[in-house]
């Protein structure tokens, strides 16, 4: 218990001490967080009428970000499998960063659901026993279960690993490995269930597609590791955390395959919708070329496709990806490309036209923009603070007084196996 208090105290110490760049970054995020909180409060006080949402388009930028963020959590499983199952030492060293990214992503996606509710204060209606969770009928109930579960799994594993290492102990496999493996299985759910949330709606032809869940998987495997590459580069340069070239190389290979496969699935979807020209293709026509003169999202989706294509080309061409700066730009493009495609590019056209043929377009209101930016800032803030604790523990510099200051790497796992 005394050790744990020391752990909390050391963590707080690590969080509040940093370079001036660190403080500037936190202050920058703080401003957006304040703005977001103010906007969310305004929305809570005045109702969702302050959004641009309508009965025709009842979901907008909040649910779009939610869909994207559940995918971002793939950063976790894609380092956990190579690191713990295939014993990849390079990825093991950085696996904690991927798991923490998943924690931040889950927190953000839960926040995006909460701000989308008409009555967020009635969340207790979702709690089993106290309220009624319509499980297993409602896919949204499934989502509540898988997201909270994944958050818990990742938070538990990283907390345990970091605490053990802080105390200078080799993490005991018995205490985390079963949960870690459960997380690998759970990851299938975390990417599939949100896809089923949409695909299960027979009345929305744009979503009612068997390829949607594979697309969610492919785009998640693109955006998650791509953002992790960026995060690893920043942590290496700013926090002097040694990241082996092999780790970046391996992640780049994963992103490359996933990005190409994601594009392939997108093209398949477009072909099947457009070629036969059935009335069910109206939403796809709306997003690609516009429908009856309505084309608000057409430039948006094409910019997303262009970014994804550019990223895929870079990931495949050695002369391009071997330049670190080009690789970073490509990773950013891949993340933004998926954000466009799986965010508003997926959610909005599902409602256009409505099931009665009406066309009402949507773009987020100022309040929705501020709330969304605020939640992203909260996620970035949380991830930064978690890294500020995790990195020195991983390096061996942050330890319980008296504990040995050496890195605890992959070898102990092998020993424990």
């Amino acid at each position, binding site marked *: 218990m005394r050790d744990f208090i020391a752990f909390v105290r050391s963590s707080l110490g690590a969080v509040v001490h940093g370079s001036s760049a660190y403080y500037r970054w936190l202050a920058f995020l703080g401003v957006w967080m304040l703005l977001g909180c103010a906007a969310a409060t305004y929305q809570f006080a005045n109702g969702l009428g302050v959004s641009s949402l309508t009965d025709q388009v009842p979901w907008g930028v909040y649910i779009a970000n939610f869909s994207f963020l559940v995918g971002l959590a793939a950063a976790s499983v894609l380092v956990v499998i190579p690191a713990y199952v295939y014993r990849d030492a390079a990825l093991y060293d950085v696996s904690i960063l991927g798991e923490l990214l998943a924690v931040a992503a889950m927190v953000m996606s839960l926040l995006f659901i909460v701000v989308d509710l008409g*009555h967020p204060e009635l969340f207790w209606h979702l709690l089993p026993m106290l309220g009624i969770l319509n499980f297993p009928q409602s896919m949204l109930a499934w989502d509540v279960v898988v997201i909270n579960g994944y958050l818990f799994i990742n938070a538990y594993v990283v907390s345990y690993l970091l605490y053990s290492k802080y105390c200078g102990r080799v993490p005991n496999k018995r205490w985390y490995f079963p949960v870690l493996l459960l997380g690998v299985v759970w990851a299938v759910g975390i990417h599939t269930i949100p896809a089923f949330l949409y695909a299960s709606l027979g009345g929305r032809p744009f979503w009612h597609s068997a390829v949607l869940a594979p697309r969610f998987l492919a785009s998640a495997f693109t955006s998650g590791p791509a953002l992790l590459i960026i995060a690893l580069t920043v942590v290496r340069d700013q926090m002097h955390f040694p990241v082996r070239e092999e780790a970046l190389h391996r992640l780049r290979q994963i992103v490359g395959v996933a990005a190409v496969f994601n594009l392939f699935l997108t093209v398949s979807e477009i072909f099947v919708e457009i070629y036969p020209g059935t009335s069910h293709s109206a939403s796809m026509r709306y997003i690609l070329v516009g429908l009856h003169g309505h084309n608000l999202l057409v430039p948006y989706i094409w910019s997303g496709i262009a970014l994804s294509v550019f990223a895929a080309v870079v990931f495949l061409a050695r002369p391009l990806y071997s330049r670190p700066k080009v690789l970073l730009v490509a990773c950013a493009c891949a993340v933004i490309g998926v954000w466009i495609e799986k965010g508003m590019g997926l959610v909005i056209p599902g409602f256009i036209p409505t*099931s009665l043929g009406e066309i009402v377009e949507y773009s987020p209101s100022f309040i929705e923009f501020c709330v969304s930016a605020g939640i992203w800032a909260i996620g970035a803030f949380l991830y930064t603070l978690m890294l500020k604790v995790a990195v020195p523990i991983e390096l061996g510099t942050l330890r319980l007084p008296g504990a040995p200051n050496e890195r605890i790497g992959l070898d102990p796992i092998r020993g424990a196996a």
Partner: protein
Amino acid sequence: MSEDHQNDDEREAVVEGVGKAQASRRRFLQVLGAATATAATSQADAAPWEEYFQQHYKRLTDEDKRAIFARLEAEVQDKYGVTVRINDPKPIDGVEFAYALNLQACVGCRRCEYACAQENNTSRSPEMHYIRVLQMDKGSLDVERSNTTYEGAVPTPEHYYQPVQCHQCRDAPCVRACPVNATWAEPDGIVVVDYNWCIGCRYCEAACPYFARRFNYEEPTVRPSEINPDQGYLSNRLRPRGVMEKCTYCLHRTRKGLMPACLEACPTGSRKFGNLLDPNSEVRQVIETKRVYILHEDAGTNPRFYYYFG
């Protein structure tokens, strides 16, 4: 049909099962509520907590309901100075409601739409309507080619008209979608919403293939003089902001033997309503003798709403 009842019974059983585990919590809340009531100087001060902790409709005792109805009536009196009566007519055994609408006779006058708004106390500003009347191109059944914002004299020679409202589906995707069971199908087939249980996620609205659900993005407003004082708890009582609502076949009328307001307003007699289980009912006669067409039948929701010709 029997399968349907079975499903309903099962759902009831589930809710009741949980309800037992609820009992102690409810007692706790009652104590809490009582404590708040004593601490507070007036009943009105206790209301927000009672409202916040109010249980799901199916978990309420008759006593709970009486207190809630009284509270809601008092709130309307306070806010609008209007005396309303909230009642809760129960589904009748052996009754399954269904609607039939004559596409050949409808002239697109939208009187049903406005009569519905009046009857059901739907918000006037922002304006909300349960019924959408589609102006359809002759030669096509494709609703995507329809126009809902038509103006001027009706009917025009180039068009026919198709009013759409909640189809009270037997396999309602909205009911399945709701994460908290705030919407369900009653034994007489009417899909209702517990306005105090809905958390406002709008998944049901996304799931509906008939664009039949409406969300209160803003505080609904109805002029005091226009409030219909005869209100059903599960139908036309005044709704709060941030919850879903929908057509209930005017259950506060139809369960007492009256016709829905949209039917009574129709000048052409295009609308037929009645008990599907009664072989002599008009709606049953229509289904048996006319050419019937079901909108979006491919969505597989098995609606209790039929369009017919002739």
